[in-house]
C-alpha cells in the first residue's frame, strides 16, 4: 500500500499512467536489474553529488572491548589502544572500554600501552594478535594488563 501511495504522489512517470502499482514497481526494479547487469562497473549506481564526497563502500571492522587490571579485574582508564599497522589509536574511557572502526584486515595486532604514567596505575604494555573471520563486522576484546 505504501508503494501505491508513493506512486500516486506523482513521483512516477507522469506520461505513462500505470494500471497496477505493484506491476509498476516490479517493472521498474526489473529495469534496474537489467541496467545493473549491463553497466557491469556499477557506475550507474555509484555516484557522488556535485558538492559531496565519494560514497563509502569501504570495508571496516568495529574493534571494541575493555582493558582491565589483571589483579583487580577493574577497568583501567587512560590506556592507549592502537593498531600499529595503520597508526590508529584511541584511549580507554573511565570504565576501561574502548571502541574504534578500522580498515578491515584478516589479522590485526592490537597494542595496549600505559601512556599516562602513574596517573591510573602503572601497567606493562601488551600486544594482542587477533584473526578476524570475513563474516563478522565487529569484535569484542577483553585485555588484561599486569
Amino acid at each position, binding site marked *: 500500500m505504501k508503494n501505491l501511495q508513493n506512486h500516486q504522489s506523482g513521483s512516477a512517470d507522469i506520461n505513462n499512467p500505470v494500471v497496477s502499482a505493484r506491476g509498476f514497481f516490479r517493472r521498474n526494479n526489473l529495469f*534496474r536489474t537489467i541496467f545493473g547487469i549491463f553497466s557491469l562497473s556499477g557506475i550507474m549506481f555509484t555516484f557522488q553529488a556535485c558538492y559531496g564526497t565519494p560514497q563509502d563502500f569501504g570495508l571496516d571492522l568495529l574493534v571494541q572491548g575493555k582493558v582491565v587490571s589483571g589483579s583487580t579485574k577493574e577497568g583501567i582508564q587512560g590506556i592507549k589502544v592502537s593498531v600499529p599497522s595503520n597508526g590508529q589509536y584511541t584511549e580507554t574511557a573511565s570504565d576501561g572500554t574502548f571502541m574504534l572502526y578500522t580498515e578491515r584486515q584478516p589479522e590485526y595486532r592490537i597494542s595496549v600501552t600505559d601512556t599516562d604514567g602513574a596517573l591510573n596505575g602503572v601497567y606493562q604494555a601488551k600486544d594482542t594478535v587477533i584473526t578476524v573471520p570475513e563474516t563478522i563486522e565487529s569484535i569484542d576484546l577483553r585485555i588484561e594488563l599486569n
Partner: protein
Amino acid sequence: MSAGLTVKQRILLNTFRRFRKNESALHPLRYLFWECTLRCNLSCLHCGSDCLTNSSIPDMPAEDFLGTTARIAKVHPPANITVVLTGGEPLLRKDLAEIGFRLREQGFRWSMVTNGYALTPDRLNQLVNAGLGAVTVSLDGLSDDHNWLRNNPDSHRRALEAIRLVARQGRLNSDVVTCVNKRTIHHLEGIQNELAETGIRNWRLFTISPIGRAANEPELQLDGEELKKLMHFIRENRKNREVPEASFSCEAYIGPYEGVAREGFFFCRAGVHIGSILADGSISACPNIDRTLVQGNIYQDDFNDVWEKQFRPFRNRSWNRIHECSICSEYKFCEGGGLHEWDYGNLRLRRCHFNKIVTGEP
C-alpha cells in the same frame, strides 16, 4: 547548433535516459547531506552557502538530526546510504565523532566535505575511529590563487597538509575538488603536480556557480573558451591516465565531453537519490539548490513522508523545458542541467555549460 556527439555517445546517452527515468520513478535514497553548521573558519569569495564565521542560525542539535536519521533507517536501508556532513565547515563542530559513532550504530555510512583548515592528525584519527569512510578536501589553486579565493594567507598550506593526511589514511575513500576560475584555468598542470605529491588519487574539477557570494565575482566565471580549455585538459589527462585522475564534476551536461571528461553521464540526482537536511531543519536535495525548492522541515514534517510524497519538481523536470531549454536538441539528455543552476522562483537558468562549450560564448 551541432551538439558534436559521436554515434556511440548518442546511443549510450539514449540508453542512459531510460535508466534516469527509471531511477526518478523509484527514487531510492542513497545520499543524505546534513548541513551540520553554517559557521565557517574561512570566508571564501566563491561560497555558495554565504556562510559566516558566526552564523545567525545555530548548529542543529545532534539529537534532532539523529532522531531523524533513526526514522529514515526504518524505511530506507541505511547500509545503502552515505550521510555527508557539510557546512559551513563541519570540523567546527566538536561533536562529530559522537555523531559518527551513532550514525554507524544506526547502520549508515558517513563522510565529510571540508576545507581542511582545521584538520589535524589527531582529529582525523578521532573521526576515522568513529567510522568516517570518505572525505573530500577543497584545493582551489596554487598558493596565491587558493589563498585569494579562500581569503586566508595560510589556507593553502593547511589544505595541502589535510590532503596529505587524508591520502595516507587507507580506510578513506577520498578526493580533492578544485573550483576552476579565470585565474586557475592557466595553472591546472601545476595544481595537478602539487596534488600528485600528496598521494591523493582522485581530483574533481568544478566551475563556480554564480550563487551566494560568487554571484558578485565575475572573475570566478569561465567563458566558453576557458570552459573548453578545461574540458580539453581533463580529456587529455584521462587519456594519459595521469595521477591524480582528473574528472569533471557532475554539475552539468557537457555535450561532446559526456562520458569522456568524467566517468558516466550527466544525471542530476537531486531529489532522486540525494536528499538533505539543512541547518534550519529544511528538507531539500543538494544544499546549494535554490531554497525556494525546500520540500519540508524536520521540525514539522516526517522526512520519509516528504521524501515519498513531495519532491515532484526534482523527479519530473518538465517544468524547466522553457526559454532556451525548450528549443534545445539536448534537453532530453540534460533535462535543464543541474538543479542548482536554476533560480526556481523566477524560473531562470543561470548558465548552460553545453551552450558555452558548443558556441564558445561567454
